[in-house]
């Protein structure tokens, strides 16, 4: 009895620690007062101001666009890597291939951002492209570091996957390509969707790499939010937080739904 009490207490305190800050943020988003910390009364004023804030709305649209595009590219390339690592035996310089596809997972974002920026500047010096940085350069950078996350999900899924189904289809006369498109990809589809959702969220959430590779006309949402809260508090950001947290948590639930499927 005593040990189950300890257990419930630990779990309760753990969850409290994880959710308390989020609840505080949501609570204060309904504060009428412009001074965030002084409670004046319940109000939806800051939600209203948020939806009329063109800078934030524009940044939000840019962020969604970049996130959707980079998640799609990262998913295609990540699936190819996951498939290659598990199913294709002959990969030239395989250690190098593994190095390329796993290092972005552990490389601090700051170093990745700096390397991308210096790369784009050097590339511009050599071939005159990209002449200025912006949405395209953020997109390329995001694809590059999201690939690894998708690859690891697909790799895990394919390792669990029963090869007999593929071999049976081959025996029945399906060729290699047909097996892939008719058997393998449909079976791992939930993991592909989970990978896309993860890449989408990572791109949407990224501040550091985007700060390095951004340019005129490409202020993503985290960049705008950071500039607003770096030195103080902002009631509009509180309202934005509440909405964004809610939306992202729903995406997270979908991710678990799709990624859980493969475990059983």
């Amino acid at each position, binding site marked *: 009895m005593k040990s189950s009490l300890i*257990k419930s207490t630990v779990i309760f305190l753990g969850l409290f620690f*994880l959710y308390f800050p*989020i609840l505080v943020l949501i609570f204060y988003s309904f504060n009428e007062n412009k001074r965030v910390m002084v409670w004046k009364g319940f109000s939806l004023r800051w939600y209203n101001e948020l939806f009329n804030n063109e800078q934030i709305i524009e940044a939000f649209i840019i962020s969604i666009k970049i996130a959707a595009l980079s998640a799609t590219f990262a998913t295609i390339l990540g699936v*190819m890597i996951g498939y290659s690592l598990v199913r294709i035996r002959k990969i030239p310089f395989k250690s190098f291939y593994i190095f390329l596809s796993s290092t972005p997972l552990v490389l601090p974002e700051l170093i990745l951002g700096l*390397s991308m920026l210096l790369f784009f500047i*050097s590339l511009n010096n050599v071939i005159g492209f990209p002449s200025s940085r912006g949405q395209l350069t953020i997109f390329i950078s995001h694809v590059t570091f999201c690939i690894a996350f998708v690859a690891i999900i697909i790799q895990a899924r394919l390792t669990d996957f029963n090869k007999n189904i593929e071999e049976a289809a081959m025996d029945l006369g399906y060729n290699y390509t047909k097996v892939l498109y008719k058997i393998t990809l449909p079976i791992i589809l939930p993991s592909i969707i989970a990978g896309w959702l993860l890449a989408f969220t990572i791109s949407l959430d990224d501040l550091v790499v985007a700060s390095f590779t951004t340019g005129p006309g490409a202020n993503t949402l985290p960049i705008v939010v950071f500039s607003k809260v770096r030195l103080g508090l902002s009631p509009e950001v*509180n309202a934005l937080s509440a909405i964004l947290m809610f939306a992202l948590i729903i995406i997270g639930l979908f991710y678990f739904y799709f990624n859980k499927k493969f475990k059983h």
Partner: protein
Amino acid sequence: MKNKLFEKYFVFSPYFWLVLFFFIPLAIIFKISISVSEWGMPPYQDIFLFDNGFKINTTLENYVYIFSDYYYIGSFVNSLILALISTFFCLLIGFPLSFYIATSNIRLRNILLVLVVIPFWSSFLLRVYAWKIILQNNGILNVILLNLGITSEPLQLLYNQYAVIMGIVYTYLPLMILPLYGYLNKFDLNLIEASKDLGLNRTKTFFKVILPLSVPGIVAGSLLVFIPVVGEFIIPEMLGGSDRLYYGKILWEEFFVNRNWPGASALAFSGIIILVLPIVIFQILYSRWSQKNEI
């Protein structure tokens, strides 16, 4: 024949992308880190000079510069200490939590796991911002402390190294819990019962059975927390004060404020060598080893 073509397409499309947009950028960092700096745009000289015959124009001065100045080494050491302390606290909170989740019944287990990891999906920046609200002088924590009579006036909780540790432990905790849970979930709980039956008490069971079996999870979780925290820039920027400088901050300032590209590149490349390389080598060896054992 067709299979070959198709395999090549699958292997080489991502290969091409990653060499172009990941490996070459890293190589460029290295190149600039051994370039001679100068005033101008770009603020470094080319490493190959062709004006009077061919000449290689490189220097290790940038490395000497950062490794002989306490400002840089001290910040890097600060970051390592910060990462060590944060990893310790993540482990301290994460271990009992993952252990109790892993030993719950299967339905509760899945719900709890989702509940623990879901905050990780919500915006990183905003979760750090939430602590800025909590730790304000007139924030909720100070209000509680005042009402309980623990302090008589509001404490300065924000803008110091403790706030930074708090923010890091909070945001990185799920990264510790996931791998820990993964390993704890795998092992047979009957082992705990067996060790109790054999007369080991709780403490001994923990140190002789549970802890040794969870070492891989502890290592994986600690690496996932430790490495990004060393390079962390946002959390010290939002919650930290001027009491401590960290690696991320000086790298940022060396590049954007001092405009010393070779110096910033040398800092970044040193970071890669010291932090990332050992782990990458470990990973490659591990994946080869596990592949061999599979066949």
